[in-house]
């Protein structure tokens, strides 16, 4: 790895995105009259904040709720409970009409470069749409701005007339980034933006995202299942399991001193391009990820946790700050406790 980009965490100021106690339940209907028989607790009380110029990584496996959080924060889905404060404004309860002007401040990039662009519209129109929607420019001026955006993300401006299927996956992702950038948002929610890309293209897009963040002081909510990508792009990382955040801390701390057993499991399970790691692999956690419609009681992870004790089955551990800037939700990790490895319970 060659050059290093600008380093430090940004100076603390009021967070540009603040989420408190976010809850999202999807009702399950059943029976003859389609009554509500249960709920999928996709997001079960999540709180975090992101500062300008910072990337918060949201990592977890399928069913953990990370994508749902992304969509809820964007108000593409209405939250069941909780507060979302965007640039000082509480948007949680806003109806679609009232939400509309705030959408300028929070944009999104999706995972699938193939279905996230309308196949029937020219690329320039897609990228320029937010500008026209918010009345920031029209006609010729929009075209000029779009051309500049194209260049900024590394595409030729004359590609504006082309259609989505004429671009490669990586190029489409750049188009998505250009579109998100067009209205100068404060926050960008990136939901698995590089997961569907080849490794060599992934690197290009990640580098682009980092450059843009530094240039425009964007806040990223970066959602991914890939820990290695997280490590690369995040400042802080939140690990999620079945709708709850189980660990939240700076990137460095997460990788050097993980406290939650699930984080440990993820780190241990991740593959790395190093054949010598084969022998060093720690215990691989067994069992399947439980269904979010029927999560285990108490700590959701207790069914697969090698360190679980009796209380774990009953008490849902709250997310508490056990060391500075390090939050963990585990009964066996109290405040000021020993950060060393836990002992396997009998």
């Amino acid at each position, binding site marked *: 790895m060659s050059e*290093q980009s600008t380093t430090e965490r940004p100076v603390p100021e009021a967070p540009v995105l603040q989420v408190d106690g976010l809850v999202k339940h999807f009702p399950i209907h059943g029976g003859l009259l389609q009554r509500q028989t249960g709920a999928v607790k996709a997001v079960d009380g999540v709180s975090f904040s992101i500062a300008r110029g910072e990337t918060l990584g949201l990592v977890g496996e399928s069913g953990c709720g990370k994508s749902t959080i992304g969509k809820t924060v964007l108000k593409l889905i209405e939250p069941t409970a909780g507060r979302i404060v965007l640039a000082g404004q509480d948007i949680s309860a806003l109806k679609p009409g009232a939400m509309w002007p705030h959408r300028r401040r929070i944009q999104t990039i999706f995972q699938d470069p193939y279905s996230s662009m309308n196949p029937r519209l020219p690329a320039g129109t897609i990228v320029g749409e937010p500008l026209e929607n918010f009345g920031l420019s029209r006609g010729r001026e929009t075209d000029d701005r779009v051309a500049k955006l194209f260049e900024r993300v590394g595409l030729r401006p004359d590609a504006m007339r082309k259609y989505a299927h004429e671009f490669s996956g990586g190029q489409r992702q750049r188009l998505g980034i250009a579109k998100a950038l067009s209205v100068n948002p404060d926050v960008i929610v990136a939901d698995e933006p590089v997961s569907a890309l080849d490794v060599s293209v992934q690197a290009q897009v990640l580098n682009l995202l*980092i450059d843009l963040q530094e240039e425009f002081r964007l806040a990223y909510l970066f959602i991914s299942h890939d820990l290695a990508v997280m490590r690369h792009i995040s400042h802080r990382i939140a690990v999620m399991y079945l709708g709850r955040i189980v660990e939240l801390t*700076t990137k460095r701390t997460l990788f050097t001193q993980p406290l939650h057993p699930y984080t440990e499991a993820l*780190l241990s399970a991740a*593959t*790395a391009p190093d054949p010598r790691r084969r022998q060093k692999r720690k215990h*691989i*956690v067994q069992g*399947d*990820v439980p269904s979010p419609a029927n999560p285990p009681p108490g700590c959701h992870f207790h069914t697969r946790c090698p360190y679980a004790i009796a209380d774990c089955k009953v008490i849902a551990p709250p997310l508490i700050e056990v060391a500075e800037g390090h939050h963990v939700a585990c009964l066996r990790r109290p405040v000021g406790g020993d950060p060393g490895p836990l002992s396997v319970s009998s």
Partner: protein
Amino acid sequence: MSVASGNILEVRDLQTQFNTLDGVVRAVDGVSFDLARGETLGIVGESGCGKSVTALSILRLIPPETGRIAAGSIKFEGEELTTLGEEAMKRLRGHRISMIFQEPMTSLNPVLTVGTQIAENVVRHMGVPWRAARERACEMLDLVRIADARRRLDEYPHQLSGGMRQRVMIAMALSCDPQVLIADEPTTALDVTIQAQILQLMLELKEKTGTAIVLITHDLGVVAETTERVVVMYAGRKVEEAPVEALFAEPLHPYTRGLMRAIPRLDIEADAAGTRPRLQEIPGLVPRLTQPIPGCAFAPRCGFATERCAVESPPLVDVGAGHTVACWEVDRVRASAI
């Protein structure tokens, strides 16, 4: 003779082509490799490099309306597969050479129980009565560590999780004791922790059954942790082959190096608090496979490329210890920092 030399599969100069609206696509353009008995070979490359097509070619699963094996030979235990009749191929598939795919949900029949699907395969190839086949299916589910196997026999694919379904696929693939198992991106669609379980399972099974495995993936991490030898493909060609430790210790092809540098690493402790070093990009795009590529396919994106590289295609050269690479500038690459 391949049997005596311990190679169970020998692929020589395989060329597979497809007819598309844009012309003839040379998906596999002269690929050769061997698979020894009981060995785990990894074929790695990005999308469009031809790795999946190679696997499908071995089992003659290329749809005849659009594609065909244009040239080359595929010898399985000495028998030439490219000219084998379809009936003989059907007896081979699922029996002596098995394959598992990326998406277990679409590879399993949703209206049949998993027990039925496995037993069906056993009956077909081994000719045993149904009851015996079901016993075997139960044994296989145990083998792939599915708890409560007997009960699971009567479950439908949608009742199982992704990881379980992949285990069922593996069980089905191994049910007739194949000599070769081809696994095409078997863990790509699975969660990280489940992927780890499945890879661990595959290694264990390999020890137990002695099946040779061809593992196709784009994930260098999976290759590093699971395979013994690796073939790197680019634009339908093989660009490098080496034992896995050698490949990662000293990759010789510029593309392999580029890939390794472009991956965000979990294990490198080099970066200090809060820094975010740039990933080394590979500039440009994969070439279109509709035109024949005169020189080295990677030349337009290669930092070491010379004029010769653009016009002459480099042959695979053995640089010792089973490490072969197709590059004119190997010495310069070797001398430069990884």
